[in-house]
């Protein structure tokens, strides 16, 4: 216990002495938290559309006007040929080509059916599919409002049968604001980066400089040394978390719907798990470069595969499996549940259990692997 006090005193002195590190730990994450979420918006609007009208009829003009005024599309060009329109797709200025064939109006009235060609730049899958869906719904509206349909509407209505009316509502986030979803994600991510990187780097640095050997010949016990490293970073992590909560309240107006103490308990356990992770990396690496790259490897997996910005459930089963093995996946789930939905202790119990297991296993493994005598 006495040794631990001396260790803590030393760690805090060193941390507060290095202004660059301190800035990297508290300043940079907060600045990122203030700026980055503004860039996170998956709301797809202003889809760029190129139109090739081979018909030049009243209906074709009407359809184009309708699409232009729908609010979803920006008609960037009216081209003479498909070839010409394709250029716009190729140089990236257009997302979608709509090609109205010659005889569009005539066929529509005569046959009651007319097919038009839509070509999408399908590399960006979500933009492509949403663009298609929007265009589809504008065309459906257009169909319903066609004068020739209106004429028949009266008698259709009287004998209508089998009309399924759909009502829908979005709970917890009725205006579909992306910031509610992503801001907690960014906070969790920054916490993860600090926890994961900083502990790993800190200990490996002692290895590289050689001071760890000096520690190893002292009677300091293994658990004392490890606690001496974990506690300061745990405290810094919790401070960062608290500042982060203030920032997301001040900047984005997001406050926790659920219990704040519960949120802190979860964050506290998560930090322990994460610090154990950093510690584990440091016991396997010889130098800072190795530690940084290994940490980088895992953190990028955390970012891209644990549901912070991308959807876990849509990944193939093996990838979902990997995601289950990242503590972040469970933590971000809980944070979103508590902050956005107000879930209570029993709702998050399972996930909290997972995080606790991570905390025990990662730290246990790290302590086991840290050897004072080789």
């Amino acid at each position: 216990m006495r040794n631990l006090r001396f260790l803590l005193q030393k760690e805090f002195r060193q941390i507060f002495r290095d202004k660059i590190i301190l800035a990297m730990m508290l300043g940079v994450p907060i600045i990122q938290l203030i700026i980055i979420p503004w860039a996170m918006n998956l709301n797809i609007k202003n889809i760029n559309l190129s139109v090739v009208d081979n018909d030049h009829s009243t209906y074709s003009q009407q359809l184009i006007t309708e699409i232009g005024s729908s609010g979803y599309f920006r008609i960037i060009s009216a081209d003479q040929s498909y070839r010409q329109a394709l250029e716009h797709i190729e140089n990236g200025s257009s997302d979608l080509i709509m090609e109205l064939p010659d005889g569009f109006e005539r066929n529509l009235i005569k046959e009651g059916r007319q097919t038009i060609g839509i070509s999408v730049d399908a590399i960006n899958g979500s933009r492509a599919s949403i663009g298609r869906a929007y265009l589809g719904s504008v065309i459906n509206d257009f169909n319903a409002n066609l004068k020739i349909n209106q004429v028949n509407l009266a008698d259709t209505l009287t004998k209508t049968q089998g009309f399924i009316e759909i009502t829908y509502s979005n709970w917890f986030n009725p205006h579909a604001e992306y910031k509610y979803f992503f801001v907690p994600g960014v906070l969790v991510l920054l916490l993860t980066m600090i926890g994961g990187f900083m502990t790993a780097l800190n200990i490996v640095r002692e290895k590289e400089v050689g001071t760890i050997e000096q520690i190893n010949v002292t009677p300091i016990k293994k658990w004392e040394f490890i606690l001496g490293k974990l506690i300061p970073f745990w405290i810094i992590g919790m401070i960062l978390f608290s500042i982060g909560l203030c920032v997301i309240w001040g900047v984005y107006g997001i406050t926790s719907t659920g219990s704040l103490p519960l949120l802190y308990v979860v964050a506290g356990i998560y930090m322990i798990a994460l610090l154990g992770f950093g510690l584990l990396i440091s016991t396997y690496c010889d130098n800072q470069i190795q530690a940084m790259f290994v940490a980088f490897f895992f953190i990028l997996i955390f970012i891209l595969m644990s549901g912070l910005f991308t959807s876990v459930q849509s990944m193939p089963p093996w990838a979902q499996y990997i995601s289950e093995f990242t503590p972040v996946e469970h933590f971000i789930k809980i944070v979103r549940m508590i902050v956005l939905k107000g879930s209570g202790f029993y709702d998050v119990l399972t996930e909290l259990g997972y995080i606790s297991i991570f905390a025990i296993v990662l730290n246990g493994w790290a302590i086991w692997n840290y050897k004072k005598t080789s």
Partner: protein
Amino acid sequence: MEEKVIVCKELTKRFGDFYAVDKISFDVSKGEIFGFLGANGAGKTTAMRILCGLSYPSSGDALVAGFSVRNQQESIKKNIGYMSQRFSLYENLSILENIEFFGGVYGVSRKEIKDRSYKLVGELGLQKEAKKMVGSLPLGWKQKLAFSVSIFHHPKIVFLDEPTGGVDPVTRRQFWDMIYDASASGITIFVTTHYMDEAEYCNRISVMVDGKMEALDTPGNLKTKYGSDSMEDVFYKLARAAKRTGD
């Protein structure tokens, strides 16, 4: 019979089929200054690390301050000081903070640390620098400080691994004065060095060649035995036979 503080019996460290330390046996008495010589790669540092409890022996045993290096490393660590080849105080802590930390983890009370660290800083002539970061000190001062820190808690034995590498002759002289003082106060000194003039200061010296201990005696006896008038020459005669090359 003098008290033996290190008793080493057929101590061996093997890495694969490479014998870094090959069955070395020797004793060191209390208060003795024991010189541990050998060319680079002869196995000095490996042997020393085992004695300090930093590394497990492959076979053989040694008792340091009465505790076995096989399974009582933690008890050994309470009774020794260690100063490694690489400078190992914290560069971004001040002199006083380093003394406080290392004194603290060796169980010296806060009050005693406070009283003695000022005295120590005074003895070293570092009053003005007491609050400066250790990283900003010249090498010679760092080494003297590191030594003082390693014996601050009055260990039974202090292990010094090439403590004077890169230090100027005047400072080296002062360093050895400190070693003599420590030895006079009853601390056993176990020191490795490449400087043959320093070897002459030791009570006894051992010379390691290819992991084996080829010679062990007082400097005077060794010189007589090998018919040389300097330790330099003794060392050359012994180390020349080495098959391993240095690092």
